[in-house]
């Protein structure tokens, strides 16, 4: 299982990558593996706002469903519609093609609160 060092993580198993003045959000390798084959994703509208620790979407496998929690607050500037049509990408490339939304942070400091790869890895070890 991969945990790239250049991104941040949440305890709800989302990842966050800084990209200029926006951040890219997706779900981790661990999350996609725990869910199994993803069959459905529901993402917010472009232009909408998300609130830290509040649900902003849903991801479903055949027999499990999980809310997506916003790692930070801000405005949704772009949504990855490709994964809505081909949710299997989430299993295949969780950190790449399967990014979910790009958010312009309301408070960039919130990124500092997120976990590093090492911290996240340690957290999921304890979860097990």
């Amino acid at each position, binding site marked *: 299982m991969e945990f790239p060092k250049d991104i941040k993580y949440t305890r709800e198993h989302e990842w966050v990558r800084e990209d200029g003045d926006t951040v890219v959000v997706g779900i981790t390798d661990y999350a996609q593996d725990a869910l*199994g*084959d993803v*069959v*459905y994703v529901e993402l917010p509208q472009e232009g909408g706002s998300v609130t830290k620790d509040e649900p902003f979407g849903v991801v*479903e*496998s*055949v*027999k499990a469903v999980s809310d997506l929690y916003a790692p930070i607050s801000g405005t949704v500037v772009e949504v990855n519609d490709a994964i809505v049509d081909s*949710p*299997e990408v989430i*299993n*295949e490339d969780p950190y790449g093609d399967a990014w979910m939304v790009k958010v312009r942070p309301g408070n960039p400091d919130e990124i500092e609160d997120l976990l590093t790869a090492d911290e996240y890895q340690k957290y999921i070890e304890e979860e097990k």
Partner: protein
Amino acid sequence: MGEKAEKTAIERFKSEPLIFERSSKGRAGVLPPAPDVPSVCPEDVLPAGFLRGDIEGFPEVSEGDCVRHYTRLSQMNIGVDSAMYPLGSCTMKYNPKVNEDTSRLSGFSALHPYQPEELCQGALGLMHELEGYLCEISGMDAVTLQGAAGAQGELCGLLMAGAYFRAKGRPRLKVLIPDTAHGTNPASSSLAGFSVVRVASGSDGVIHPEDVKKLMDRDTAALLLTNPNTLGLFEENIMEIADIVHSKGGLLYCDGANMNALMGIMKLGDMGVDLVQMNLHKTFSTPHGGGGPGSGPLGVKKALVPYLPVPRIRKKGRRFALDFNKKKSIGRLKAFYGHFSIMVRAYTYIRLMGYRGLRRASEMAVLNANYMKERLKKSYHLPFDRTCMHECVLSDRLQTPKGVTTLDIAKRLIDYGFHPPTIYFPFLVQGAMMIEPTETEGVETLDDFMEAMEAIAKEAEENPRLLKDAPHTTRISRVDETWAAREPVLRWTGEKLKIHSGCSKSSRCKASRSEE
């Protein structure tokens, strides 16, 4: 016959086309009688805009074709009559055949719900008597038969709990639900307007009074308990828990889905339970019908009687009447009076069994489950090793190191001629297999089942592939549920089956894992 032709013919035999694909223009399976009154043209009595055109694709088959089609479909099913069906928490007991005859008597089946009461005295009397029997078995003060199934009975109970507190002038908005509960418990609660607070089970698989004490307050309407719980364990602290709930003015609701362990041995009403729904299609031998219809009566204690749904059946002297006038009632739960023909089956069963038969049923259900548990724990992980009630829960922990999961074990059981148990429930046990033999299986059948389970445990060690590819003996091989969910095809449209190789391949290799 050429090899290819032979293969096609066998394929054709193995699958059954859809009824629409069996259709040919101009065929008919049943004819309406010729009109004995002047024919009215729809165009003459209805505006043109109200009339429909052709129903494209609607079937046209002969009676013989139709009967063969559905007979062949039936042969692709397993029922309780074909094999042991140890589906945990579903109580798949044998359904006495006479139930089917009595419920089809024309005096019952041809009865219209709006006939004058004087023509329905037999039916009303039967319902009244059945209410009484269910009160006696559960230890409650009154029963409504309106619930169409367990979940609707449960919704009824929760709506009544809501009304009860509203009438007291202090509405309560929360309910407590253990983590082992059936999914209907939280779903019905939220439908009834309650927010759900989860109660964790102890390491011994039951709920502990101190955990309830911490969560129970004067905003909590009820604790929803399943007893015996879905681990097949008796909630032994129930009296103490009931006291805690009652001391805060709350109600104890019991999901009676597992009542098959208790008949004639204990009464839920004696354990401080205020409301309980019963499932006639589980405990009282009415058939499951491939998913229903069931029936979910609700029993309540005296304080809740005013809130029962209308109509109530009232006895006036020797006559029975429907009473619609109950001021505090939550209203009507269902059109008409409930699933009457299911009630007839349950009534038939209770009269066949009598008080001794019902007690015997529960005793043997408990004995059967313990008999299986004692032997199977040698080849499968048993998370809670204590006397169980009518069912026991095993897990795949001993098999997972070989890559074999509960799903594989379940599918392999099919090859041995058994319906699999309930799998991956309760969530508390990872890779759960919930086995409920019921009392109608004799010791030889139980032995056969356990031999199959043991053989599978051995196969898991020696030849895991055999399990991963199971079932091998059914007309179709393992079904790709991922594909169904990714590209939903929910009706026939005349289009040929499209197989996207890429998609099916990716989901195929993970098909087993998706259920874990």
